[in-house]
């Protein structure tokens, strides 16, 4: 599951780097990192408390 999630995020980043989508590429990268935290928290609720103490 995690592998598929990472694969999808990789595709998202690649797609975001295409000329027509590049306008906010930096922000997309930041959102992908934060989004990964949200995705992990939602996928593994047991991990969520530890994840969010990081912030």
């Amino acid at each position, binding site marked *: 599951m995690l592998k598929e999630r990472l694969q999808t995020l990789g595709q998202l980043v690649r797609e975001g780097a295409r000329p027509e989508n590049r306008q906010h590429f930096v922000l997309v990268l930041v959102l992908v990192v934060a989004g990964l935290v949200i995705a992990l928290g939602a996928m593994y*609720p047991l991990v969520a*408390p530890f994840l969010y103490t990081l*912030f």
Partner: protein
Amino acid sequence: MIYLRETVAGLISPWVVLSPTRFARQLQQFAATELYTHYDIAEVAERQPSPLREEMHRHANDELRHHGIFLDWARKVAPYVTAGAADDPSGSRSRLEREEVRALVAQPAAPHRRLPTLFEYMTYIFLSESRAVLQFKLYQWINRYDRRCREWIPRLLADETRHVGYSARVAREEFRRAPWTCTKGFFRVLGYILRQDLLDLLRLVQILGSGLVTGLLYYGVVTPYGLVKRAFGGVRRGRLRRAAPTGPVALDDAFWSRS
């Protein structure tokens, strides 16, 4: 232990009731729970013999009626909280709905899962309904200053109490038939409910945590980024991208594979 969650929820209920937004959201959640219970019980009822089937259908219909009561109540408490977003342009929906999407994906993906026995199901109903009775009684007592709680809750409580009664009766009958299997089943249900409670608690952490992360992200990154971009004319509210592509669309393999 198993009633702890409802006790806490009942005790902190004034904090919810006094805020129209929070109260409306909670009522919406109650409404959703009632609706799912309706579907669930109606589905299980179809597999039961008469007269239990009729009894369960009556229960299912009660849940549907409660769903309507909670929704109406929520709409009266905070109309705009419960109104739909305009075609969901931001790509968001209520958390509940999203979870529903996941649940529906997960459920048929595991068609061979073991179905609960009638005893287990009735024990589950008994425990859930008695938890609801406890929570509503606390709600009623603590919020007795609130006219709506005084009016509505007794109507729900009467039904919930009847559900506790018939589920306990059916579970008892089943238990007499096979005591040892049912004892194992009882602990299985208990374990299931406790696990769900733990997951709900962790989900609460997830909601609060991710709320914090997105808040920080929005004001710490998106806002400064947006202000700079706008200052340099990169994007405007009325013009999100420079130019929309026009011309022939190449409907080739690359087109179909790109998401």
